[in-house]
Each structure stands twice: as C-alpha cells, then as structure tokens.
C-alpha cells in the first residue's frame, strides 16, 4: 500500500549538487517490515526523511493507497538515529509526545502508556529526564512513544546500532514482540546483516552512494519468525552477506 517509485534526492552542498538517492523504487504492504541495508553514506537516512515528510524536495513519487504520502494525512512514527527524545521533557512527557501533538492525552492514552512502560521495563522512570537514562532506556522510551502512537507507518533509523550487543538483542526482541502483537508497516534502516534478517520480512539492499536498489530479498520465512539460534536464521544471514558482497563490490 506504500509505493515509492523512481525516487531521487540530491542535496545542495557548497561543493555543488550531491546525489544521495537515485531511481529507488519500493513497495511496502500493510503490516510488513522492510529492512533497508546499505553502506554508510548511501542515503539510508535520506530515504527515511523523505518517507517522514522531512525532505520535501525530491523527484519521483511516494504514495500511500494511491495518494501522496504526507505526515498531515498519514500517522507516521519516526525514531531517528539518536532516538529523538526532547531533553526538557520527562520520560513520561516524551512518550506522550506522539499522541499529544494536536490534542490532549486522554485517559485511555495514559492507561495504555502505563501498560507499555510496564512491559518495557520503564515503570518508575517516568519522571526522569532523557539525560538521566542509559542508551538502552532511551531507546525503550522511543519505542514506547512509537507503539503508543500506533502509526500507519513506522520509520526507524539504525535504531539499535548505538547499543551494546546484549542490549541490542534484548531490544530487537522487544520490538519483535510488540510488532507481532500489532503489526505496523515498518521501514528500518541498518548496516547490520543480522538485524535486518532478524527484523525484516523484506530486505532491500542498497548500493554505495548514490543509493540505488541492488536487490530485494524476500525474508518472510525467517524475519520476525525464527529465533536467532535457528539454522535457517544463520543460513539466511550467510546468503544475504553473499548478496551484499556482490552488490557493494560493483
């Protein structure tokens, strides 16, 4: 239901125009997770900014159900690379920010948030400020905000890459748990093969800058289903690694 076609984005830098994405076409179904893998600087963040309506100058089309995708008409949750928490808001206020833009929080919002905090292990931290949290806790707050919002489209920019390995796997499990309960169309960007294979049903492999779609891999038998210890998981990772090595060499 979300379709990107012939997307190209260029930045105006001092040194002249810099092409970040070229001829990117993609489709994303309702309740599908799509993991975009690409080397650093290939335009992954740029792609998310276009989907989030932050970059408005691009060529090509980005449609949802046949209409242009804009944040005014579609509920979009965006977790940027640094989690996007506002330092002057408490954990509680930060988590509510998604639903409270444009309206006041209802009793139902607050009840759901309390439940989310419990499940995410954030109970008791409500009155802290982001500066008083560990990276993993900040990421949990960002996830609480996103799940509370129940967006039509969820965008995550290298959501777990700044965390240590143990915390990263823990949070990937948290994400899968919530996502399975309420499948939200998700685009997540990563440079890690395991993360992509573990969380994505569809893997999109981008080339080095300017980013072009090299290959789309159907990961549905593995992504969001199998455990990390599964043989199928390890085989899929090895396969994707091969494809990537091929794709990034060119």
């Amino acid at each position, binding site marked *: 239901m979300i379709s990107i076609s012939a997307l190209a984005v260029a930045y105006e830098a001092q040194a002249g125009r810099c092409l970040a994405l070229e001829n990117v076409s993609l489709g994303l179904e309702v309740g599908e997770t799509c993991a975009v893998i690409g080397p650093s600087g290939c335009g992954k963040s740029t792609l998310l*900014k276009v989907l*989030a*309506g*932050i970059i408005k100058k691009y060529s090509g089309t980005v449609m949802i159900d046949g209409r242009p995708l*804009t*944040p*005014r*008409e579609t*509920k*979009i*949750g*965006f*977790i*940027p*690379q*640094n989690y*996007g928490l*506002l*330092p*002057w*808001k408490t954990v509680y206020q930060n988590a509510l*920010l*998604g639903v409270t*833009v*444009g309206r006041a929080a209802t009793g139902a919002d607050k009840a759901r948030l309390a439940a989310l905090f419990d499940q995410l292990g954030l109970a008791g931290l409500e009155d*802290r*400020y982001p*500066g*008083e949290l560990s990276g993993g806790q900040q990421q949990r707050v960002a996830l609480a*905000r996103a799940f509370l*919002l129940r967006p039509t489209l969820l*965008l995550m920019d290298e959501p777990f890459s700044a965390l240590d390995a143990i915390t990263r796997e823990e949070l990937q499990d948290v994400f899968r748990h919530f996502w399975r309960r309420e499948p939200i169309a998700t685009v997540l960007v990563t440079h890690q093969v395991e993360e992509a294979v573990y969380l994505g049903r569809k893997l999109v492999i981008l080339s080095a800058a300017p980013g072009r779609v090299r290959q789309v891999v159907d990961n549905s038998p593995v992504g969001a289903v199998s455990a990390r210890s599964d043989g199928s998981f390890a085989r899929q990772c090895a396969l994707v690694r091969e494809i990537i090595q091929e794709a990034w060499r060119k």
Partner: protein
Amino acid sequence: MSENRPKAWYLYGAVALLVLWQGASVFADLPIVPRPLAVLDNLGRIFGDKIALHSLFSLGRIVAGAVGAMAVGIPVGLGMGYFPRLDRALSPLVYLTYPIPKIALLPVVMLLAGLGETAKIIMIALIIVFQVIIAVRDGVKSIPGEMYYPLYSLGAGFGAVLREILIPASTPRILSAMRIAMATAVSVLFFTETFGTEYGMGYFIMDAWLRVNYLEMYAGIVVLSVLGLILFAAIDWLERRLCRWQSV
C-alpha cells in the same frame, strides 16, 4: 545540601562585604565612609516609612523593562533563529545597534517618551532586549536538526514546534541573558532616576547625598545592592524551576 548552598553563599558574600567595609571605614576614618553597623541601624529605622516606597518604584521599573524586553526580544530572537531569511534581514540591524551604549540614546528616548516612567522603562528594556534577541537566536540555531524530526513526521505545525522545542530550548538562554543584562540595567535605572522623578532608589541616594546625609545615602546603596541580589536570586529560582532538565 545543594538546596542550601546558594543561601550559604549569599550569607558568606554579605559577611565578607561587611568586613571589608568595616576595615575601609576604620582605615579612612572619614564621614563619607561611615561604619556599616551605623548604616544598617539607620536603615532599620528609615526603611519602613522612607526607603520601602522608593525601592518598590525601582523594582517596578526594572520588572516592567525586563518584561517589555522579553515581549519584544523573545519573538524576534525565535523568528531570527528559526527562519534564516529573517536572520539575514535583521542581523545587520541588530549588530549595528547592539554596540551603541544605550545611555547615549537617553536624550532621544526622553525627547520621544518624555521625562516620566515610559522613558525609564524603555531605557531598561533597550539594555536587555538585545541580549535576549541574540541569546534566543543563537539558542534556536544551536538546536540539532534531528530534534525536530519526530514532530515534523507527526505533521506538527509551527505552533507545536514553538511550544515543544523552540521555547523550552531557549529558556535557559533567556535567563542567562537576563542575568548578564541585569547589572547594566540597574546602573542605567539609577541614572534615569536622578531626574524627572521623586521616587526610586536613584532619586533617594542622590537626594541624601545633596543633603549631606551619608548614613541615608549608604542605606540607599545597601538597599540597591539587595535589590540586585533579589533580582539575581529570582532569576536563579526561575532557572531551577523551569530548567530542571539542564542540571541532569
């Protein structure tokens, strides 16, 4: 403990000042440098029926000037910080006028606004407003772009960006600008109160001087410095209330 420390420091400052003053007065042994205890004793006797009203006038003018400066400076600074075009248009104007010693504008302000309250308040506002504009503008400019993304992706309009990001991000900057401007504002207030009014600490101190009543003059100076202390303490208090997140 950290709550009590500022109070202890204020006390320490007051005691140190009194000791220095006492030393100077013993050393000089002149009527123009009276003993601090004599001054405080005099202050205790005349505060209620003489000085209190003057100090309220001065405080009122400072507060009015500060509020006026914020009412103009915050919107202008926010606009310049957020909209690069507005910044390009207004920056030259701000840079040209900011360095002018505001006291040099006093004759112009008096000509336009008369000798009364308005001119005094405008003078104070003029001192503070530039500091506020520049502090807010730089504060907004230093907000990393990523900070806005979650709001933009929710389709938030300018109102929400203002409320959720621009104002909280610039509040600490506004308060420190006020703190920096306050000392100059009090000096200029003093100056403007030496004419066109019979109320205010400036008037009281100059009047006591002309009457060669040094005890009253010093009592006025003490009150003026306590007034300054109250203003700084109020700014500190606001900062602790509004910017709790900063100390984490």
